[in-house]
């Protein structure tokens, strides 16, 4: 299987007036093409920093990151990055919102616009393309934000607590939606979340981190029976509770 993301010996220090903080320490992992890696860890441990480093927004103080065999130096177009909120712009229609990434990268070719229309159609937003973000439900907005990122044809997708701004019910549906789209598109994904059930329900592998500075404690393989296709179904699978308990215990700060 092709290795899509390679993180090799990455450490990161954060400098501020108060001094130096080690956020991440000697992280190593690999994500294969089409694989879904969940990263869980105590809050404030530096999970998001790992994503920033993969995307090139932050530089590691030590170590290297490779995406699709190429070393990451500065913001790379190979990475799609989704933040906590959908960040759709209210002054643009859904279609114009979806095209924003392409617009910024000067890639508004006929071919790419056709692709945008194809994805809007495929994921049920075609009738909504001329509406404003505020006229859409939370779930539809999240899909629009995802399409915006998919249109730049990233090699890998980073999700940073991407569903945390949604209410619980929407969150469950959106998770199913997003999961289906990611698997449809064969997208390599790294998701940071403090929500263990959510991670277990979506991921193929889960990396558990220690508290700050974040170190890799263990990488768990997550496997469900073939009858459990969606994150929602996986939540009802017999293995689900087992995985949850194992990871929960591992993160337990009292146990350290």
């Amino acid at each position, binding site marked *: 299987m092709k290795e899509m993301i390679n993180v090799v010996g990455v450490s990161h220090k954060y400098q501020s007036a108060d001094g130096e903080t080690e956020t991440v320490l000697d992280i190593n992992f690999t994500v294969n093409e089409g694989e879904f890696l969940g990263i869980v860890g105590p809050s404030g441990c530096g999970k998001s920093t790992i994503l920033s480093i993969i995307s090139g927004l932050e530089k590691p103080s030590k170590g290297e990151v490779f995406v699709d065999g190429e070393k990451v130096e500065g*913001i790379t177009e190979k*990475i799609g*990055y989704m*933040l906590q909120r959908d*960040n759709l712009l209210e002054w643009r229609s859904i279609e114009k919102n979806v095209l924003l990434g392409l617009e*910024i990268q000067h890639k508004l070719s006929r071919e790419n616009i056709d692709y945008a229309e194809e994805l809007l159609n495929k994921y049920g937003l075609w009738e909504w393309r*001329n509406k404003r973000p505020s006229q859409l439900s939370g779930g539809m907005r999240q899909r629009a934000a995802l399409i915006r990122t998919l249109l730049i044809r990233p090699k890998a997708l980073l999700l940073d607590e991407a569903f945390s701004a949604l209410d619980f019910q929407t969150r469950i549906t959106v998770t199913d939606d997003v999961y289906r789209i990611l698997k449809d598109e064969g997208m390599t994904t790294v998701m940071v979340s403090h929500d263990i059930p959510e991670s277990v329900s979506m991921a193929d592998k889960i990396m558990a981190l220690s508290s700050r500075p974040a170190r890799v404690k263990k990488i768990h393989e997550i496997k469900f029976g073939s009858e459990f296709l969606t994150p929602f179904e996986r939540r009802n699978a017999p293995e689900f509770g087992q995985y949850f308990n194992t990871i929960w215990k591992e993160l337990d700060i009292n146990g350290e």
Partner: protein
Amino acid sequence: MESNLSKERKEYIKNTQRRKRAITLTRIGIFLITVTAWEALARIGIIDGFVMSMPSRILKTVVSAASNGLFLHIGVTLYETMIGFVLGVVFGGIIAAALWSSEFLSKAVEPYLVALNSLPKIALGPVIIIWVGAGTKAIIVMALAISMIVTTLEMLNGFRCTEEEKIMMAKTFGARKWEIFLKIVLPSNVFTLFNSLKINIGLSLVGVIAGEFLVSKAGLGYLIVYGGQVFKMDLVMASVIILSVVAMLIYKGITFFEKLVLNNIGKAQ
């Protein structure tokens, strides 16, 4: 349709309409009472009509001035205000954008901005006259001096309050600074922009009148000073009243323009 409304709804509508009407009537009442009382007190001789002027004489002055260059004076003041306004918005906007884009620059010049902002700009009058000459230029520069700093600070403040995560989103697509400014910061700040336009136009007018007090051969500010010097209080009062009407109309104009733009933005493209 009417009959479908519930009794409470009808009652509510009737009450709001009645209230609206009462407010309008009160407004007209305040005007009428003030004007009548002023006129009556001056006529009876309780107040001195020569010093305080009186509504009938003000009206007469306006009517006779209307055929005697009044519109030229209004035009001159409007013209100067508009130039001061446009220059203030353009320069203020450019400076605010520059300060937004460079935190270093903005930190470096901050104390100077604060000093300039708190300085009563009218104190610069003599300096301005010596530097650019006693004419329309001096008046426009005065308008600029008074309006620009506030516009800059107001806009800068708005730019800085742009949602950080939206900027981050644009960055993840590799957006450069000016792209972030044009695609995220500027459109996020339409409300702030219009607010600063409103502040700017008001201050430009203040600057123009102050400038006209110092140097001018025409304009409402000139009329006020001239009327004061020759003790024509009717002319002074008439000019002040016209000035307040002009100021209100300009403000309304911007509010109208704002609604137009916001409606356009609100419509799906």
